[in-house]
């Protein structure tokens, strides 16, 4: 028979799990067709692609942005990476379309539709909620973010994905704030969002990363996907 203390511990554990779930449910992961060569993309480049300022990545891969018509991933993507509301984004695209300067990007109704379109379309790049299945697509890590400086990543190590969590299908995107010293070493990391256990593993890996040296200390934001479907 469980004691009251054990019951309380169970309740706290459940509450903790729910809190961490809600933290990464509000987040988003970036997916791409396997034809896209890179495994990571800078936040600035991601923004340029979705605002149709560029149609190919720095590595030469041609890309096509794919939007979601709504949902938590869509809201998170607009806020985190485009810095626009739904209304201002639609106005932006319509301005391009009706002055002849761009096209209306493909927009899919659900995460599964986005994944399906990205999987079958060469160069497609989209976003879905962290818990979505990503069969047939690759997940991109996002480096840098709005209001953060960007430094080129020289060496990086993938974080360990704990086997127990992977087996139990627990994943999501972890967001970290990373402080980079002038010499390029990672000075500190801070968990901004995502599962706290995965966050610990992500921070352990990121602390070994090395960026290009700069004139002063800078901060950046890193999103690391833990995809239980890969």
């Amino acid at each position, binding site marked *: 028979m469980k004691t009251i203390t054990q019951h309380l511990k169970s309740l706290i554990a459940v509450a903790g799990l729910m809190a961490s779930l809600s933290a990464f449910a509000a987040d988003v992961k970036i997916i791409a067709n396997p034809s896209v060569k890179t495994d990571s993309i800078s936040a600035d480049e991601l923004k340029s692609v979705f605002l149709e300022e560029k149609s190919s990545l720095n590595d030469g891969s041609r890309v096509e942005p794919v939007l979601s018509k709504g949902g938590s991933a869509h809201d998170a993507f607009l806020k985190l990476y485009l*810095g626009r509301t739904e209304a201002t984004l639609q106005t932006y695209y319509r301005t391009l379309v009706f002055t*002849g300067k761009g096209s209306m990007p493909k927009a899919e109704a659900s995460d599964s539709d986005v994944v399906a379109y990205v999987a079958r379309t060469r160069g497609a790049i989209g976003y879905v909620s962290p818990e979505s299945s990503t069969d047939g697509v690759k997940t991109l890590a996002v480096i840098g973010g709005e209001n953060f*400086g960007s430094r080129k990543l020289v060496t990086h190590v993938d974080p360990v994905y704990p086997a127990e969590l992977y087996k139990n299908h627990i994943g999501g995107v972890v967001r970290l704030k990373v402080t980079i010293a002038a010499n390029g070493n990672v000075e500190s990391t801070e968990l901004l969002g995502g599962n706290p256990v995965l966050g610990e593993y992500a921070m352990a890996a990121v602390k070994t990363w090395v960026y290009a040296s700069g004139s002063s200390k800078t901060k950046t934001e890193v999103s690391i996907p833990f995809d239980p479907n890969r």
Partner: protein
Amino acid sequence: MYRRIFGLIFVSLCVTQASTQAQDFKLFDRNVQIHGFASQGFVHTDENNWLTMNTSGFGSGEFTDFGANASTQITDKFRIGAQLYDRNLGGLGKWHPSLDWAFASYRFTPWFGLRGGKVKTVMGLYNDTQDLDFLHTFALLPQSVYPTDLRDSTLAHEGGDIFGDIPVGKKFGSLSYTAYAGHRSDSPYSGYAYLVNSDGAQFKSFGGLQYGGDLRWMTPLKGLLVGASRMNEDVTLDFLNGPTDMRLGSKSEWTNQYYGQYTWKKLVADTEYRRYWTDLGTQGISIIQEDVRGWYVAGSYQIVKRVQVGSYFSHYWINYPNGNLLPSGSGHDYDKVVTVRFDPNRYMNIKVEGHFMDGYGLPNEYPNGFYGANNPQGLKPNTNALVIKGGFNF
């Protein structure tokens, strides 16, 4: 009249629901996008007739426009497209469709691209989008800077642009530039043509060389954009005065425009200043010499998902630089505006707008909404207007 307007809105709703289903098709293995829009307005004024409509009685619904475009991305850097546009605004447009834009564009890099054909002219915040009602909170943009009756004179050019976006570092934001040159040609159903014809002459043509540029800076302060535009012109106005052919040519013709926009969450604040200088003459003698200056301050806020409210103050005045005195009471138009915009869905919008105007510009010299021919009884100093407008796009 009301029945007609609501009928049009209902038809728009039906068409929208049908048309949003089929916008793309394949042609020679290329994806072609088709988009369109339409709007219908109604204007009632308490005093003077406005915008060439008989607005001061019951009101006028002669305020319709629509357009459609097709475009395709040939390669990741090369795209082509064209848009047709038609409008009927009182005595303007008169249902004669025009090629709004049609061009090919090649973007070599994000910082350098070329486009050629008939191109919408980038000037200020909204010159190239002034007809696209669904993009704006307001039913009528501030007429001090974007006079809808005179849109032909700045709207587009047949020629080419160079353009690009230049990042200048995280600390300094980014720059966008456009430089252009081409030929402007006013429609015989434009505001200047209407003025010439209503003065008893017969309009033949108005147009010529236009060239200039626009530079805008997305500042490092998030949401703040500032910019400046310049347009130079060398134009010729041809008309028949009785049996006599008349031709006035530019001695000096230019427009300067400065602007700023700040976006914070669901709030958008705009301000612009435009100065237009014209000196038209013949055989070295100035016949028309005017200095037109306008500015406005506007703000809009999305209070809930489907409702925006907005307001602006638009201020415009005209001087005769050669020392001639303006007719008493004329030469300015100060317009205070309040608007509510409701979007029933992402394709439709309905706007209700009030205008409270002091002044009527210079009706028989430089048209800006008020024309002597529409107001034979003479113009009153103040005009209040109610504008109701509905539209859709897909």
